[in-house]
């Protein structure tokens, strides 16, 4: 923007740099993003001379009260319609760092612009109107931040002046958004009540929010971490081009992760050809000595002539990426035409381009309305999981192993139409669903939810043996049923007696046990029931799998009764047997229980009655959108 902003750059004359953090501001339209940004610039002394006067004049000309958002909504169209259309970027300084603020529009139809902005961010500010509360678009943005890998999210509850700075109202919104973000595996770094228009809570605490003791917005921004270094990961150098301008044959590309140095033995994937790096070329001085790390755009020459193409990946032989023709990805879809099974696409993984076919749509959901799950196609602005087969092999990593190479975009008619994360490669080892045609229910989810007054959900109770899971599960089942709902209890031990009777207690069998529980529970949830799972499920990774399967329907409850009390209770005599050495692989004695880090709810049954605990669960299900407060008018949905 032309009002840039003192001081303008991290590159100071003496060459030192300050940490730079890129932050995207997202939220529902009209919840006050642009106003907050305008206020932040003002409070940090970053507005150029004359800008304030210009804004006053622009506002006056339109016969409106002073409007901070005009600062950002530079485009005439935006001013006329009063909305932000596209992303914009502004810089300012806090005490400890340089901040690049990316302002992203809130309108659903401009979701592509929000994603364009958020994909470049190290952290995010999610803004919520105190009066309106959490909206579809708030939830959608939360989900997309999670999908884009933005883990640091500070939540700002704006327009507190409209709710008389009510601490109760603030707490209700905090609880709701925390439950939603926790459900996605994102822990908010702060939740801050503010009035952006008047400045409360932006750079300073004011008396009007005297009850709030947490950080201001500026302090919260100060606490966000710069991007994580990628050098520690294995080497990935996707090849952009091969240049032969003179007698050198230079392989050019950017090091996405890891590092390299002349002399390294490397492998070209997916072909698997081996060579050694002869030189690292540069200009004006060449060759360059020393190790080159992630982020550098380099050119290397090799000790032998190999056929290399754009899109190949240079790696070290011992830590090469996997070669595959099949992969599963979690994607967001931006194109008007829904993405369906059988669609032909162009997929880009870095510079690699490949034709692809959608083999299966495993899941499709509108992240704004957590309830509606369909499986046939992924609509515009919805997310889903797909299996794709590629016309030529590519080298890639699951995003959990490498965030840079484990992501892809999808092109339709030469234009980016979606993108997402590689969940796993070689998805094709599972049954290829060519002859399997899933039969759909005769009922729509909303028909059931109108009758039951709740959405489908998987309520997953995890905790040590004898922590009280089954007791709580049964109390909850009774409670929901009495209220007209459709709860179904899936007890770990009960299912082991039948469906899972072929499984033992090895780590692999335990994982499979959890996977099956999650599949059955998810099937019930998709059909509108509340599946209550009571299972020790000690491994964090297995529960993460269950969450992935059930997706937005998943609510985790950690029954966190202290181990001593569990052993004292010992209703099934398991602890006694384990102590005596006659029960092998018993979770509880050997301390192999991995407690959840971000459960939707934590309950200690040693300090709660069963009824109190059931109250808490019911409340959580209400605030996280599973239980309806009022009777739903079915006609309204038609």
């Amino acid at each position, binding site marked *: 923007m032309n009002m840039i902003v003192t001081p303008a750059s991290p590159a*100071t004359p003496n060459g030192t740099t300050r940490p730079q953090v890129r932050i995207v501001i997202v939220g529902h339209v009209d919840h006050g993003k642009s106003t907050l940004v305008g206020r932040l610039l003002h409070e940090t002394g970053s507005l150029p001379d004359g800008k304030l006067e210009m804004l006053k004049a622009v506002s006056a000309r339109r016969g409106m009260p002073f409007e901070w958002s005009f600062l950002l909504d530079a485009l005439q169209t935006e001013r006329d319609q009063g909305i932000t259309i596209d992303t914009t970027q*502004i810089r300012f300084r806090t005490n400890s760092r340089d901040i690049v603020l990316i302002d992203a529009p809130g309108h659903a139809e401009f979701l592509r612009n929000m994603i364009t902005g958020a994909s470049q961010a190290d952290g995010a500010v999610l803004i919520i109107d105190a009066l309106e509360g959490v909206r579809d678009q708030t939830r959608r943005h939360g989900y997309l931040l999670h999908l884009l890998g933005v883990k640091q999210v500070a939540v700002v509850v704006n327009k507190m002046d409209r709710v008389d700075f009510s601490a109760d109202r603030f707490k209700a919104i905090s609880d709701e958004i925390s439950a939603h973000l926790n459900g996605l595996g994102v822990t908010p770094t702060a939740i801050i009540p503010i009035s952006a228009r008047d400045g409360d809570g932006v750079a300073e605490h004011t008396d009007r929010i005297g009850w709030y003791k947490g950080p201001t917005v500026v302090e919260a921004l100060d606490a966000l971490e710069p991007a994580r270094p990628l050098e520690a990961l294995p080497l990935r150098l996707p090849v952009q*081009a091969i240049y032969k301008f003179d007698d050198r044959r230079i392989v050019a590309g950017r090091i996405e992760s890891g590092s390299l140095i002349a002399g390294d033995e490397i492998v070209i994937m997916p072909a698997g050809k081996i060579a050694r790096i002869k030189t690292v070329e540069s200009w004006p001085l060449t060759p360059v000595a020393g190790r080159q790390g992630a982020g550098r755009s380099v050119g290397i020459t090799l000790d032998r002539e190999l056929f290399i193409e*754009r899109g190949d990946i240079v790696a070290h032989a011992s830590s090469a990426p996997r070669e595959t023709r099949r992969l599963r990805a979690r994607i967001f879809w931006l194109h008007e035409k829904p993405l369906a099974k059988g669609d032909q696409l162009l997929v880009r993984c870095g*510079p690699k381009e490949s034709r692809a076919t959608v083999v299966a749509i495993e899941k499709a959901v509108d992240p704004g309305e957590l309830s509606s799950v369909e499986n046939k196609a992924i609509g515009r602005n919805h997310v889903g999981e797909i299996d794709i087969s590629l016309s030529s092999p590519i080298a890639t990593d699951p995003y959990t192993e490498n965030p840079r190479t484990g992501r892809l975009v999808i092109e339709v008619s030469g234009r980016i139409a979606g993108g997402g994360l590689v969940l796993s490669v070689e998805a094709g080892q599972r049954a290829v669903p060519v002859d399997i045609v899933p039969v759909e229910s005769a009922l729509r989810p909303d028909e059931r939810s109108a009758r039951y007054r709740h959405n489908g959900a998987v309520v997953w109770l995890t905790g040590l043996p004898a922590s009280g899971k089954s007791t709580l599960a049964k109390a909850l089942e009774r409670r929901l049923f009495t209220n007209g709902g459709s709860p179904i209890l899936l007890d770990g031990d009960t299912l082991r007696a039948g469906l899972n009777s072929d499984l033992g207690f090895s780590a692999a069998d335990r994982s499979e046990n959890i996977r099956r529980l999650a599949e059955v529970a998810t099937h019930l949830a998709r059909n509108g029931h509340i599946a209550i799972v009571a299972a020790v499920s000690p491994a964090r990774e297995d529960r993460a799998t269950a969450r992935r399967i059930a997706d937005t329907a998943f609510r985790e409850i950690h029954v966190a009764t202290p181990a001593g009390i569990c052993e004292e209770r010992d209703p099934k005599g398991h602890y006694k047997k384990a102590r005596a050495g006659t029960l092998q692989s018993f979770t509880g004695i050997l301390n192999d229980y991995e407690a959840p880090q971000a459960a939707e709810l934590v309950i200690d049954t040693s300090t709660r009655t069963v009824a109190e605990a059931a109250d808490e669960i019911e409340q959580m299900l209400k605030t996280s959108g599973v239980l309806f407060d009022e009777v739903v008018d079915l006609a309204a949905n038609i």
Partner: protein
Amino acid sequence: MDHLDQLEAQSIYIFREAFARLKKIALLWSLGKDSNVMIWLARKAFFGRLPFPALHVDTGKKFPEMYRFRDHYGKEWELDLRVEPCPPIDAVDPTLPPAARSAARKTEGLKMALAKYGFDGLIAGIRRDEEATRAKERVFSPRGLEGNWDVRDQPPEFWDHFNASPPQGAHLRIHPILHWTEADIWAYTKRENIPIIPLYLSQNGKRYRSLGDQDITNPVNSTASNIDEILAELEQTKVPERAGRALDHETEDAFERLRVAGYL
């Protein structure tokens, strides 16, 4: 990697993507500080060469120092330099305010050059921090058949994946230094020892922060007579970079109208 290294690596990545994915590209050389840095970065990307033409769309109204600079470094850097003229002022939309109308000659000259050579990509040295509408740009920005920019319908662009398939007859603007700031440009110019036009340095208490046509560009008050002093000045100033550009100040949306029509 320090901050300038990161900026440099990102720009090189963009240059290489443009060269790999488009058939016929050219770099727009306006002779100013930004496009000089841009040429330098391109030579880094391609190991000393510029493997495509440098296009100077010439209004004929630049400063003599700028023409001298062009003729000297065009040769020294071994550029494939194409100088293309602009149409006279009468050929330009008369409803535009005077300075904007004068600047719009460049848009028309650009269209003529595009038609003449059939480029499908034009590399331009605009930066997000220069001006509010530029802040909204994509790195690979599709232009319509008339060279126009549809700001309401820009394609998504994320994780350094760019849209690079313009429709037949249309072209893309590629912006390899979109993420740089004015201070970055100067710090990098100093670090890499890139030549500059002396008009940027203070003489008699004034210097140019942004160079355009003589008739619509004015110097700002400044005592900065070398790059270190420019950087120190940028740390302090609250005067916008384009304060000396007359066309930005004529009406609220003068610049936006130009940009939508295809101006840089």
